């Protein structure tokens, strides 16, 4: 294919992608408008399950936004050449995903029209309020980081900006995990383990998203990914997925150790219906064990078309994990009378609290992904975000480190 033909196809692909993602954003905006007009009563959410499917999308995007910056951090902070070339794309994705996640989170508020109130009133005792500061700070620091990477005169400051971004994102994910960790009233959430667990989850989700986006972008632009790069990334991904599995195991084992938590653990691991299925099939089997088998398989793992589905499965597993954690955690009723099997005439005795996601909730969540994809697609086209690998340099690095 000559250059002109390729350019024409690439241009068409760009406008097609912008059209598709733009449509998804519009549909998401329509879903938000519908929920805003009628209230949350038209969704699957209730007085007991107040954080529904949009929160799963939002938290996934926010956690993955922090994790996707890991690629840049490995390049800037730890000096790995292979990852340095990927740092701009990593930074861009971090901003785009945080933007998409926060949009969903904000539009799912009971009063999304009060954004200014949320930005101008700050309660220092609330971890939720601190997260608003952390998100705003993340935007600023990553924007500066991108500037130092892309402006030649500022390159000298890139390492410092990268280090600041690395520290900030660790604090940010600690904050996100602590939103749940500080909820002493809920059996599913009240755990100091959640902060480090969310950090590890961010590593895994973020790198999986990066691998997927990188593969799609390379294909769109007719570029070839070096096998050495792929090998490094898939090895790292396997380590992160294993770490998430380890933290999941410790989280549940810790709960099982506490007598008061055994009912909740029985609910998630054995009797929870959809939540139990999503845990074992979605998170553990499809989201962890099968991808690990692919990533550690000597032949399979070296094929680009095997790593891509493994990364997709990890993303799917991440959604399942957050669905079980966020919604399953609320579906298990507050235990007002420990040690008794109680059924009540009101909502409080129902086990589990019912929740069926509604279409508007799903569309709002997808709208967040649409925002992310739209920002990334336009930015990659307009600016130089795609990794430009120096293959000779790669070979040298390969010989030194491996």
């Amino acid at each position, binding site marked *: 294919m000559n250059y002109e033909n390729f350019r024409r196809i690439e241009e068409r692909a760009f406008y097609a992608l912008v059209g598709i993602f733009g449509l998804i954003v519009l549909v998401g905006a329509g879903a938000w408008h519908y929920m805003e007009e009628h209230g949350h009563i038209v969704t699957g959410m209730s007085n007991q399950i107040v954080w529904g499917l949009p929160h799963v999308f939002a938290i996934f995007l926010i956690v993955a936004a922090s994790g996707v910056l890991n690629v840049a951090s490995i390049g800037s902070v730890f000096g790995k050449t292979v990852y340095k070339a990927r740092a701009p794309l990593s930074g861009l994705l971090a901003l785009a995903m945080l933007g998409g996640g926060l949009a969903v989170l904000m539009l799912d508020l009971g009063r999304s029209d009060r954004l200014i*109130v949320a930005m101008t009133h700050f309660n220092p005792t609330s971890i939720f309020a601190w997260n608003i500061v952390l998100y705003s700070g993340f935007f600023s620091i990553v924007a500066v980081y991108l500037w130092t990477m892309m402006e030649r005169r500022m390159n000298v400051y890139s390492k410092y900006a990268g280090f600041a971004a690395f520290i900030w994102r660790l604090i940010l994910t600690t904050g996100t995990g602590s939103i749940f960790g500080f909820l002493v009233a*809920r059996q599913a959430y009240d755990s100091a383990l959640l902060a480090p667990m969310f950090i590890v989850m961010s590593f895994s989700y973020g790198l999986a998203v990066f691998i997927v986006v990188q593969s799609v972008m390379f294909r769109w632009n007719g570029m070839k990914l070096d096998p050495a790069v792929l090998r490094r990334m898939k090895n790292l991904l396997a380590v992160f997925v294993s770490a998430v599995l380890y933290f999941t195991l410790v989280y549940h084992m810790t709960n099982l*150790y506490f007598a008061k938590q055994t009912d909740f653990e029985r609910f998630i691991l054995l009797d929870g219906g959809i939540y139990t299925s999503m845990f074992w099939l979605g998170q553990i089997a499809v989201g962890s064990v099968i991808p690990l088998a692919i990533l550690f398989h000597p032949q399979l793992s070296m094929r680009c078309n095997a790593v891509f589905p493994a990364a997709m499965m990890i993303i799917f597993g991440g959604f399942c994990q957050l669905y079980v954690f966020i919604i399953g955690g609320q579906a298990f009723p507050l235990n007002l009378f420990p040690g008794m*099997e109680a059924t*009540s005439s009101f909502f409080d005795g129902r086990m589990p609290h019912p929740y069926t996601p509604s279409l508007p909730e799903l569309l709002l969540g997808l709208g967040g992904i649409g925002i992310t994809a739209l920002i990334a697609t336009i930015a990659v086209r307009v600016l130089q975000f795609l990794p430009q690998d120096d293959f000779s340099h790669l070979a040298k690095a390969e010989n030194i480190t491996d």
Partner: protein
Amino acid sequence: MIQSRRNFLRALPAITAGAALAPAPAIASAPGEDGGKHRWAMVVDVQKCIGCQACTVSCIMENAVPENSFRTIVSTYEVHQGGHSGTYMLPRLCNHCDQPPCIPVCPVGATFQRKDGVVVVDGDRCVGCAYCVQACPYDARFINHETGKADKCTFCAQRVDAGLLPACVETCVGGARIFGDLNDPNSKIRHLVDQNKMKVLKPEMGTQPHVFYLGLDERFQGRVDGAGTLWQPSGHGA
């Protein structure tokens, strides 16, 4: 004159509702926000509750609570334990705790505690994030789907400030709900709290609830329960 007529008209719905019901124990006149003079609390005498839900209905009427949402309920629990079954009725509402976990979590400071102990939500500031709903260990809060804001029992602050009793107290058929000022040594609630062994829900949470239960079965009081899974004390020299 104009001012007093306006105040009278504002208080008219509350006055009408109050006059229509049986005479209730008097509370201090025009208490309002009083610089900590009062500490409002409620005692629920479980043995007098007949589960008629009059309190639930009057609360809905007084506070325009939307469909399928409740600021107070009387849950009828069918409890099974050790092969025995029983039915218990338990009125539930916001506990107006001294250490309310819903206040520190609110990102915009919309939830606050008045000096008289009543925990309320500033409707002009609440953004409806529902973090307070998650933080309440008593399931006493919800997001009002008509206003999009956090909602809960306020001890009918609008009535209390006008010198009236909360709607649920005034309408209770069995007189199971007793409301008053704990700071008043001569109040009925002060005597009840001093002379009886009161129980609260989930005392282990350290929230210091100000809804006290009289006659609550020991087994209903919060405690840590369950069976250890990984380590059995009986197998350790017991």
